[in-house]
């Protein structure tokens, strides 16, 4: 899983990515000439202070926010606009379940949109609900679920059409510590099983070290990449490793990178 397999065969190749949001009197550079690559099956964490454009990177890759013309983005060697529907799954910070649909129907929504609503794929809805532990709530409505359950339903929806790239925007940020740790372990298992390429936005250094092969450290104003660090810890990673010297050292490196040349107030969680 070496992070270095660059060249023409990167799964994601981003070069000179710039995103501007025009305001009334000036232009905000949400991202300023950001370049990075992601290998297939790699788990990448994006970490940085608020406003550094982490989420914007995901939004661009999902096709929700347009980059400026000079930016070059390819996914599996194809220009981003040419990538077929159903290649990218997106799990949002707020799970965005549609309140008028049952949990089952929420998870099935992407299949309907992508024209994949066949019996075979429907079976996948049931499998995924089992995987995220929501089988008993399939016929329930979002307002009956807790925050953690909603988020797991959101993850099931992101995976239901078997995307080759999964984008996750602080999926566990709103959850309590215990649920969060549990879901992180679960997410690693899921990833080891499916080996999807994952890009995870997080505020949490320990979460990044626990899950990622590679951590992209960002800075804000304008949004840019400070450093890309590989996490060299064996898999599967366990909760016991949190206190191991190697884990602590990886976390310290990331924390040090985050704080370097930054006002303390900008970085502290």
């Amino acid at each position, binding site marked *: 899983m070496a992070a270095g397999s660059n060249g023409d065969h990167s799964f994601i190749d981003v070069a000179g990515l710039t995103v501007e949001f025009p305001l009334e009197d000036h232009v905000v550079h949400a991202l300023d000439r950001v370049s990075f690559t992601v290998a297939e099956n790699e788990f990448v964490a994006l970490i940085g202070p608020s406003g550094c454009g982490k989420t914007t990177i995901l939004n661009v890759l*999902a*096709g*929700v926010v347009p980059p400026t013309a000079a930016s070059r983005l390819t996914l599996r060697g194809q220009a981003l606009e040419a990538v077929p*529907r*159903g290649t*990218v799954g*997106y799990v*949002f910070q*707020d799970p*965005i379940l*549609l*309140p*008028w649909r049952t949990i089952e129907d929420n998870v099935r*929504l*992407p299949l*309907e*949109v*992508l024209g994949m609503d066949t019996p075979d794929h429907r079976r996948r809805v049931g499998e995924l609900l089992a995987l995220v532990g929501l089988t008993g709530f399939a016929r329930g*409505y*979002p*307002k009956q679920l807790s925050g953690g359950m909603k988020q797991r339903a959101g993850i099931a929806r992101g995976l239901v059409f078997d995307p080759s790239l999964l984008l996750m925007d602080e999926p566990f940020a709103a959850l309590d510590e215990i649920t969060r740790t549990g879901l992180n372990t679960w997410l690693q298992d899921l990833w080891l099983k499916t080996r999807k390429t994952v890009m995870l936005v997080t505020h949490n250094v320990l979460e990044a070290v626990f899950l990622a092969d590679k951590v992209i450290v960002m800075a804000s104003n304008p949004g840019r990449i400070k450093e890309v660090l590989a996490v060299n810890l064996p898999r599967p990673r366990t909760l016991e490793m949190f206190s191991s010297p190697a884990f602590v050292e990886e976390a310290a490196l990331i924390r040090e990178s985050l704080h370097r040349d930054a006002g303390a107030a900008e970085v502290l969680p």
Partner: protein
Amino acid sequence: MTSGGGGGRTAAPRRRVGARARTRLELLATTVAVLSLWEASPLMGMQDFILPPPHQIVRKFLAIYPSVFYHSWITLVESVLGFALAFLGGFPLAIGIVHWRFMEKTVYPYVVAVRLIPVISIAPLMVIWFGIGMTPKVVVSALVAFFPIVVNSVVGLRSGAVEALKLMRSLKATPGQIFWKIRLYASLPYLFSALRVSATLAVIGAIVGEFVGGSDKGLGAMMLQAQAFLYTDTLFVGVVFSAILGLLLFGAVALVERRVLFWHESVSTDNP
């Protein structure tokens, strides 16, 4: 507003039940006091063609109730038809305004401007155009109920749950899919809050249509005749039945709303 079993509400704490019972008791006491004072008004020199006491109104109703029911039925039919027409015209129009820039630029400004005309002032025109039958009453009723439905539906269809739109765009959904799977549902709370207002407006429109319509059917016509003969008690019967019709339509909308919007947090949302 309904006392109906409270099935939808979560069990309220005991204290609140007590408070509600007391509010009801206070309301009952006030009502009894007002009615007693009203009943005693002839003793204080009030003439009954100005203010007939309640028992006289009730006696009058018992004497003429078949005709009251008949006129109420006519007005109810006009209101329901007007309301249906307003919905069937208003909601699709709102969809058009939201989806085609052309309609937004050309039609919507007129909708907003025409809304400022008191529709009642158009009623005499409707009589010239549509005669003295049921049609002009239905049209006036529809016109009054129409505008809240259009304006609120436009707001609702545009609201379209911004976050959900982001989800749909990440899936590269087509505009049709976004409409049928998101916008339509997201607009329903707004639509229903307009429908509740329009239901009572439709009854007002029908009665105004009858006032100017020169026909002899409907609660409005009944009240005009009563006014001509100074049958003040009949007028009061007409007022009560107009209110009942309004409540009937409002209640019907609220009932449908509960079934359709069961998924919504607050089941009934109000917005300006």
